[in-house]
């Protein structure tokens, strides 16, 4: 029983300079008693990740925690995990009983009676009592897999790891074992991590599913959400059988609150505007080609549905009927002119009632359920119907330092200097500050935890280096002060909780905005301020760039000999030698070994994790940006530019300053291969 935490886990096989990333930046928090399923096509890194958790593969970079303990360097047997293998991996020379007792006997913590009791109990749970004295070869596949489950159960592990345990069984047995493993999970109340390439197993068993492709996590969500809100085209196509239909289409807003969808062959359907409410306006211009996805079960054939949804109805010609008994799958050609079978974009698959009388080469009228369509960007393949919209696009006029936004005349902060004219404002949904619900400005919660446990150790720094920079406690960095500059009042139209995020639909003078309002509760109207530094303006004369909330600087590890075989280590960033905490040093040396000194690194830190202090990276304040709510200094440190939150310090333009970093929240990346070390 334990939670797991995987932070920036990488597995890189050294293959020349670049290396092959089998697992690329895997981040996940697994809670106690969860049933997590890793799913993806072969070679996607799911098994590798599992084996890294088991300790059978070394972790190239990143941090794996089981419970509260970092286990990167812990032997498999000490990790308190049990693993079930695809090929069972039973010891053939031992009886079932010996197989199950093997781990307990090795640990030498148990008496004969205890071992016997545990084995009998596990055998009872799995219903294999009558086979206890047989050898594995005298068992059938299903029985063998039960024994290997039993071998895991007797150890009472914190985490169960199952590596495609059912793929060697026949279909019927697989379905049966599937339910049994689910039952087992209920009974044992332990964390399960299950690897499979079978999406049915994933959907039926997991509390959460991790979809992977080519070593990269595509989406982590509950089975329902994966099915309903796929994050990209890959997930959409991977989950669900038969596969989702994909069509190229363009979207155009029409008069009367409808959106017209035009397919490649000029067929058109109409959608309600609400369906695409969260879609970026730039896709609705009638020119941008997007991918429209609709699941076979969301295309309906029955007359009642078609007559109710005339706007999304169209005709097509059936080309193949697959009667599966419980349902019938119909394949249709959309483009009667070209009988293109291979090209999926002219084919439509739909599921119909098995009683339906439907024939090959018959013209039928079908309708798409408009609430169940999915839209994807054609290039990035990411969904353009995100559950949490990242930004709002708003048209506004700028005139003499004021912006006419949503009917309110708002003074722009001095940091934003724009010529008069029409602009499109890109306001991220997290760029709103609500009176009474001001939250910490950064969203990096996880590293806060780190902040409190991090020991600023003495291991690598018994004697100071020449230019060594002092370290400052975390608390000193965390004194944000916000000037609340009200921009407008807003009405809350609706509230939607998505995971841990609260999405607000705000109504401002008939305009609608999406805003993230974690913590906002029990109110109908809000006084809103805008975090202007996150807002970008696109105008005819001038386009502003997004303000960098994260600073990146190149760095390298330096050492200085202090005695015979004694060294001190520091991180050289922009000319300053920064104290390496045990945590950072251990991480870097674990990931890079002796190459650490030759490797080019990049450090990154937020604008709130750097402050002016009496020692640190030396630089000159180039300018001071006043965003109304806060002041930011742009500091030139050598070649590099660092944005620093100023708070109350009275730093002025042209001042020489020294910048100290909040070390526990420092990120370190190996520049060349792009591997995040911390």
């Amino acid at each position, binding site marked *: 029983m334990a939670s797991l935490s995987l932070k920036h886990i990488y597995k890189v096989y050294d293959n020349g300079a670049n290396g092959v990333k089998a697992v690329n930046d895997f981040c996940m928090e697994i809670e106690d008693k969860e049933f997590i399923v890793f799913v993806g096509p072969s070679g996607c890194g799911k098994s590798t990740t599992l084996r890294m958790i088991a300790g059978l593969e070394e972790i190239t970079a990143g941090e794996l925690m089981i419970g509260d303990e970092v286990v990167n360097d812990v032997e498999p047997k000490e990790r308190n995990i049990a*693993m079930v293998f695809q*090929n069972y991996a*039973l*010891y053939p020379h031992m009886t079932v009983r010996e197989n199950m007792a*093997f781990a307990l006997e*090795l640990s030498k913590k148990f008496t004969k009676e205890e071992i016997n009791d545990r084995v009998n109990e596990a055998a009872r749970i799995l219903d294999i009592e009558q086979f206890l004295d047989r*050898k594995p*070869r005298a068992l059938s596949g299903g029985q063998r897999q039960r024994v290997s489950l039993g071998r895991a159960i007797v150890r009472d592990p914190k985490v169960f790891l199952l590596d495609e345990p059912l793929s060697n069984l026949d279909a019927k047995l697989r379905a049966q074992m599937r339910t049994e493993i689910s039952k087992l999970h209920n009974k044992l109340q332990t964390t399960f991590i299950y690897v499979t390439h079978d999406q049915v197993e994933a959907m039926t068993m997991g509390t959460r599913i991790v979809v992977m492709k080519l070593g990269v996590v595509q989406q982590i969500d509950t089975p329902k959400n994966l099915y309903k809100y796929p994050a990209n085209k890959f997930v959409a196509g991977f989950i669900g059988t038969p596969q989702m239909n994909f069509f190229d289409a363009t979207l155009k807003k029409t008069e009367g609150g409808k959106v017209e969808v035009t397919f490649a062959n000029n067929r058109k359907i109409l959608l309600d505007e609400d369906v695409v409410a969260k879609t970026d306006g730039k896709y609705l211009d009638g020119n941008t080609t997007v991918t429209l996805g609709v699941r076979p079960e969301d295309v309906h054939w029955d007359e009642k549905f078609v007559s109710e949804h005339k706007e999304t109805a169209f005709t097509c010609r059936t080309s193949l009927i697959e009667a599966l008994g419980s349902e019938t799958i119909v394949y249709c050609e959309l483009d009667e002119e070209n009988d293109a079978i291979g090209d999926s974009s002219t084919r439509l698959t739909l599921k119909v009632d098995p009683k339906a009388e439907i024939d090959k080469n018959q013209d039928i009228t079908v309708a798409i359920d408009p609430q169940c369509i999915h839209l994807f960007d054609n290039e990035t393949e990411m969904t353009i119907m995100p559950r949490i919209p990242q930004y709002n696009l708003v048209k506004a006029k700028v005139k003499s330092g004021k912006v006419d936004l949503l009917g309110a005349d708002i003074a722009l902060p001095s940091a934003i200097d724009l010529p008069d004219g029409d602009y499109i404002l890109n306001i991220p949904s997290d760029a709103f500050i609500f009176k009474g619900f001001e939250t910490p400005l950064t969203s990096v919660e996880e590293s806060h935890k780190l902040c409190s446990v991090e020991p600023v150790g003495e291991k690598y720094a018994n004697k100071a280096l020449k230019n060594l920079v002092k370290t400052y406690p975390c608390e000193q960095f965390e004194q944000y002060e916000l000037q609340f500059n009200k921009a407008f009042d807003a009405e809350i139209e609706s509230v939607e909780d998505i995971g841990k995020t609260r999405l607000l639909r705000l109504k401002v003078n008939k305009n609608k905005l999406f805003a993230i309002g974690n913590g906002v509760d029990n109110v109908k109207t809000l006084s809103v301020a805008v975090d202007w530094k996150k807002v970008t303006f696109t105008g005819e004369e001038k386009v502003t760039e997004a303000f960098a909330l994260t600073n990146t600087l190149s760095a390298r590890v330096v050492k200085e000999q202090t005695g015979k075989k004694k060294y001190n280590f520091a991180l050289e960033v922009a000319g300053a030698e920064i104290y390496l905490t045990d945590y950072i040093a251990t991480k870097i040396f674990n990931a890079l070994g002796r190459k650490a000194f030759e490797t080019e690194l990049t450090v990154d830190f937020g604008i709130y994790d750097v402050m002016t202090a009496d020692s640190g990276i030396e630089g000159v304040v180039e300018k001071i940006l006043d965003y109304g709510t806060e002041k930011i200094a742009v500091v030139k440190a050598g070649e590099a530019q660092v944005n620093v939150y100023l708070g109350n310090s009275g730093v002025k333009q042209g001042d020489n300053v020294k910048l100290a970093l909040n070390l526990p929240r420092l990120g370190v990346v190996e520049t060349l291969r792009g591997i995040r070390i911390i």
Partner: protein
Amino acid sequence: MDYDFKKTNGGMKRRKAISKSAIYTILTILSICWILPLIWLILQSFGMEPDAPYQSTYGSPDILPSHYTVNWYVKLFTETEFPTWYLNTLIISLACMVLSTFFTLSMAYVMSRFRFKSRKTIQNIGLILGMFPGFMSMVAIYYIFKGIGLAGNVENWKQILALIMVYSGSAALGYYVSKGFFDTVSKSLDEAARIDGATNSQVFRKIMLPLSKPIIVYTALMSFTAPWGDFIFASFILKENSGAYTVAVGLYRWIAMAEIPAQWYNLFAAGAVCVAVPITILFLLLQRYFVEGITGGAVKG
């Protein structure tokens, strides 16, 4: 189409019969060539001239002796040094069997299961060194042993120890066959055991070895027979010290040194038969492991 089944079938049968008889004829001739010297040797070890119990049958034109006796065996064990040699050889071979098997299997296990720097290089060096004939280094080895006082004019047990070291020392170079066998044992068994809490040596002892009986038997037999029949090293290291002789050296000296070959003729035959006995027994005892694969049921199957 008309089809004469009888004719076609008959034709195929006949052709098969002809080719089979040809094959069996060749095989029979080969086996006679191979087994005849053995039969002849065994017969001669029991043979005697009529009315002359200790008269050698040397020079007799017949394969079958005219009369039979066990006198030669009695003489072999009562009047010659043969029992000492026999015991020496047995000690050397048994010791080598244990040591070499251990060395070979450990090496094979490491090469099969662990990935470390220069693993490939070591493997290749091992393979190439193993191809060189062992006696190449004979002179050097002799002087090394002489230097540490195990060769030259020393006690018998020291020379026997030297021989044990020679034979088992290079055994690990013959790891290749066992490695091939270990490679066939599923790696997930190791991993399962490792997760179950087994150390490397526990995986080797409790999982690998019990599953590798055929290859253990093979390795053990090979490492028993090698010193049992070796002549070159033994004769070079033991020189004239007949108390430490192995059977191969002793028997050879009999026929090589004898002024009248007839004197040792039947004794040699009897000695040779005795030499063959333990190997035959060992093989009969262990042969079932050769054929019995016991990995069934380990993994998918």
